[in-house]
């Protein structure tokens, strides 16, 4: 009986580090599962404007309203990146690009700690705040449509 317990204890001690380490693997996750069309739709809205510079400035103002500090921005490429530190780090990138001659596409993606954010509510909250600052209505986009 004692031997059994001793063996159990030894096995637990031997495998615990392995079990803990197996909780996360350290593969270089460069090519993660391709973003689904659904997620791309969740992350994208279109707006009836052609003023990309204003759209980027509004994105920066919205991110600041939401507690982010802007890390980087590029008017030519239409990108803004920002980080929110609130016990954990949330990083967001917003890209703005023209679609056709009358509208722009705004896409947001985020990571929380070490994971990509795919929660639709998170993006919904962002675009609600962004649309208010843009004084424009956001249109949902069909991710399968050409140009997206």
């Amino acid at each position, binding site marked *: *009986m004692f031997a*059994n*317990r001793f063996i*159990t204890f030894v*096995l*637990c001690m031997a*495998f*615990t580090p392995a*079990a*803990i*380490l*197996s*909780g*996360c693997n350290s593969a270089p996750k460069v090519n993660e599962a391709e973003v689904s069309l659904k997620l791309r739709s969740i992350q994208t809205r279109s707006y009836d404007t052609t003023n990309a*510079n204003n759209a*980027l*400035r509004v994105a*920066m*103002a919205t991110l*600041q*309203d*939401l*507690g*982010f*500090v*802007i*890390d*980087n*921005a*590029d*008017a*030519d490429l239409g990108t*803004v990146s*920002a*980080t*929110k*530190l*609130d*016990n*954990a*780090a*949330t990083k967001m990138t917003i890209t703005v690009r023209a679609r056709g001659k009358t509208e722009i596409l705004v896409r947001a993606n*985020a990571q*929380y*700690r*070490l*994971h990509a*954010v795919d*929660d639709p*509510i*998170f993006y919904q*909250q*962002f675009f609600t*705040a962004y649309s208010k600052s843009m004084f424009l209505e956001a249109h949902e986009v069909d991710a399968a449509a050409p140009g997206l």
Partner: protein
Amino acid sequence: MTSNFCNLKQLAVMGLFFVLAGLTGCASNTIPPDALLMKEPATEIRQRQARRYATTDEKQVIIAASQLLQDLGFNVENSAKDLGLLVVSKDRSAVDGGQVAGQIAVAVIFGVRMSVDKEQKIRASVVTCPSADRKAIDVRVTFQRLVWDDRGQLSKLERLDDPEMYQDFYIKLSKALFLEAQEVG
């Protein structure tokens, strides 16, 4: 029979133990539902972080801000003139006398070495934007910091919300611009 039962029970306990150990290997990475929500109204935060200057020269405002931030010891990390953005940071000691005294006391009483803050990176971004009537420039600065302890672990990630810090920044910016700052609602 009893022995087999004991083995099964032991196996079940071991299995549960390994599953729990595996789960603790990864911290929760699900974004909290309130990650984008602020604890105070956006207007109040904006009043603290933003000011309006009666000028149309956005470039001059960014240059004045960069000079001021250099005076405060920050290094420029990034800038985008077309978007009125300036990103700066500085690395400083985060050693606090009280924390160190606490560390020594805990070590003497309990024989345990407690970690204390050692280094910090303070980051700030300044964003300028012409006002809606194009007669003034709105400036908004935001500060945050990351703190590492003496074991090299990140111990704090936080926004800096002290109103005095922002007030002090704008008093100095107003002096540099020779302009009076107005609050932005």
